[in-house]
């Protein structure tokens, strides 16, 4: 701390240069924050998708008979099967998309990461038209327990209309589900009784298995069960399904890594150049410091501290700015993409230090090796 004023003075020796360098760093970290945030959301989807959970989807068409559930349960190694259907629609305005998953308590058993309490589950079962809502979507639309939510859909109900009204019975903490509209879960029985088409069908079965190592064997066993039925199935572990979905348009991970790589590569040159210029200009001053007793290593540390200070300040500003900008992307990507897990901040600050050291090392080394007499003589 004693040397801080000295570092500070060094940093602000040429304010314009420092400001431009700082801004370059800020920009690079805005990009880093946004792209790593997106990347982290994707990684989180993959991390929460489990290997001991299989998805049984229709191989052709859109639906499977709910009666398949009993047969899937008989496959050795299967511990639990949940069927689910879905209702697409919007609330008030077509922009407020809502996807209501229609299932029963087995869905929550298949997805233990949805932190629902026993009481909440009991209330949902007692309330036929009840829904449980994830906090992300509840927060966005301002829904509270007790609210009646009309959802406009394309699915005709018994009344001949296509508006389904639900009763919010509980708000649960949402797990990362980027790109989706957020969890809204209702009762399958109520939905199936109320709809006029596709009764007795589901769009997917979620299957929990005892041993993830058996996933491939159990998947093909399930598919064999229905291979010659009217509705053949396609079973795959959740993780494979999630990866296929994420990569269906383009490879987000590879894209973010290349862009961040390109940005940091050019940033390295910006900061290295700034530090080199600064040290070159200050050669006589550094020599004076040495002659009044500063050690070689002290000067090395001094120059490195300057570059670390600039880079860390830029990184913090940039990550903060990224955090502020990210919500703007929500309409494009849906909730969940606009997040910045603490890990991204840690990674960012780590990257800042690495850039600082890499770009400051050469100039700092030069400062360390200054020969006082030559430097003072201006050689």
């Amino acid at each position, binding site marked *: 701390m004693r040397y801080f004023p000295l570092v500070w003075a060094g940093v602000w020796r040429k304010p*314009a*240069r420092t400001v*431009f*360098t700082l*801004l*370059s760093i800020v*920009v*690079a970290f*805005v*990009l880093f924050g*946004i*792209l790593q945030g997106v990347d982290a959301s994707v990684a989180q989807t993959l991390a929460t998708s489990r290997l001991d959970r299989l998805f049984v989807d229709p*191989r*052709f*068409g859109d639906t499977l008979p709910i009666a398949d559930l009993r047969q899937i349960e008989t496959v050795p190694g299967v511990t639990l099967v949940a069927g689910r259907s879905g209702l697409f629609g919007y609330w008030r305005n077509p922009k407020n998309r809502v996807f209501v998953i229609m299932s029963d308590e087995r869905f929550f058993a298949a997805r233990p990461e949805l932190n629902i309490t026993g009481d909440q589950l009991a209330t949902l079962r007692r309330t036929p038209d009840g829904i449980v809502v994830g906090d992300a979507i509840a927060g966005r639309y301002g829904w509270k327990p007790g609210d009646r939510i009309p959802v406009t859909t394309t699915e005709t109900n018994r009344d001949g209309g296509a508006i389904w009204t639900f009763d919010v019975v509980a708000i649960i903490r949402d797990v990362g589900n980027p790109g989706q509209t957020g969890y809204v879960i209702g009762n399958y029985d109520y939905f199936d009784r109320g709809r006029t088409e596709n009764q007795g069908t589901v769009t997917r079965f979620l299957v929990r298995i005892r041993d993830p190592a058996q996933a491939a064997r159990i998947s093909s066993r399930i598919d064999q069960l229905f291979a010659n039925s009217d509705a*053949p199935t*396609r079973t*795959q572990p959740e993780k*494979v*399904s999630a*990866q*296929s979905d994420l*990569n*269906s*348009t*383009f490879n987000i991970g590879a*894209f973010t890594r*290349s*862009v961040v790589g*390109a*940005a940091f*590569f*050019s*940033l390295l*040159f*910006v900061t290295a*150049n*700034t530090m*080199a*210029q600064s040290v070159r200009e200050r050669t006589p001053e550094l020599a004076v410091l040495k002659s009044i007793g500063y050690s070689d290593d002290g000067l090395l540390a001094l120059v490195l501290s300057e570059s670390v200070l600039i880079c860390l300040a830029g990184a913090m500003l940039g990550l903060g700015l990224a955090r502020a900008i990210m919500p703007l992307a929500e309409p*494009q990507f849906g909730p969940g993409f606009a997040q910045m897990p603490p890990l991204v901040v840690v990674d960012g600050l780590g990257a800042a230090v690495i850039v600082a050291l890499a770009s400051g090392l050469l100039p700092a080394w030069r400062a360390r090796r200054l020969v006082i007499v030559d430097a003072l003589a201006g050689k």
Partner: protein
Amino acid sequence: MLGQIAAVTLMNLRSLPQRLGASSVVVIGMASVVAVVVAVLSVSTGFLETVSRSGSPERAIVLSSGANFTGDSNLTRENVATILGAPGIRRGADGKPLASADYYNAVPLTKKGDGLTGWVTVQGAGPEIFALTPEIRLVTGRPFKPGLHELIVGSLLQSQYPGLEIGDKVPLPSGDWTVVGVFESNGDSHESALLGDAETLMSAYRSNMFNDVTVRLDSAAAFDRFKAALTTNPTLQVDVMRENRYAAKQAKPLDDFLTMVACWVGGIMAIGAVFGALNTMYAAVGARSREIATLRAIGFGAGSVVVSVLAEALLLALLGAGAGAGLAWLFFNGEVTVSDGTVYALAVTPALLALGVGCGLAMGLIGGLFPAIRAARLPVAAALRAT
């Protein structure tokens, strides 16, 4: 005046090698921005080229009204018969209308590269399909036979998915279908599909609704007549579009998305690169302040000093942008990928290269302008005295 400008600019550029380190900041900054922007846009350009190539203004596509794409659209046999009777459709040698009522579905197949699942389009077409779309040419094997479980496979699709060689089986609802031929289609989006007979495919899927009708028009101008006949027919509720317009519409969402990504990411990176350039150019002006003051003192105008600094910035930006665009071309042009079920090659077109270089020059201009003005305003006496 021009002579002055040329003299100062040349003198300035000759001293560039002395500022190699600092100048590389501009070059590398511009190169990374331009490379990223061109690379992202090469995806949408490639996709757009492939998809829009499959549309011809001489063909029209009929969908049930309100449908955004074939999968949304349903046409009954009566609808199809009515559509085929409309005026404006070209007829073949046998007098039959050159048209195909199509049925589409998708099968999940495992990709070659990453082993992930991709949804592959299966198109069921009418018997006139080869006369209707002459660009579809069989390269090996034979055409599918109506009534048999046979498919032909697009060569682009074949390159991305294993198990689509002639003789291989593709599982469909009614059992396995055999691949009997491979077709090319000028690399358009047809080539990402499996093609079979519509009626046979529909019975396999137990559907009796077609998804669309594609017709060959008498001429491009016959479109209005054809469209008017269908839209005024009270027994039909259909939308009629030229096939090329339909194709462009299908490509729009991905194109819009990638353009937005390129603008945002490229825009943010460009801001960073401009700061880097400003820094370098201010430093360059600072280092040359005595030289500039001397020039001013012996009578060179402010204008020539401004131009010389700008020329340096633009030259560096041009070098960077050229390198960035070149790298993007080297690494991405022709790279084959799959998006939303369409197999296509990324395309770094000359227009895209020009766009990249243009962006680079714009960044160079901004990065050079302010330092150039500073250079022109240097107080001559003070700058001469400075050590």
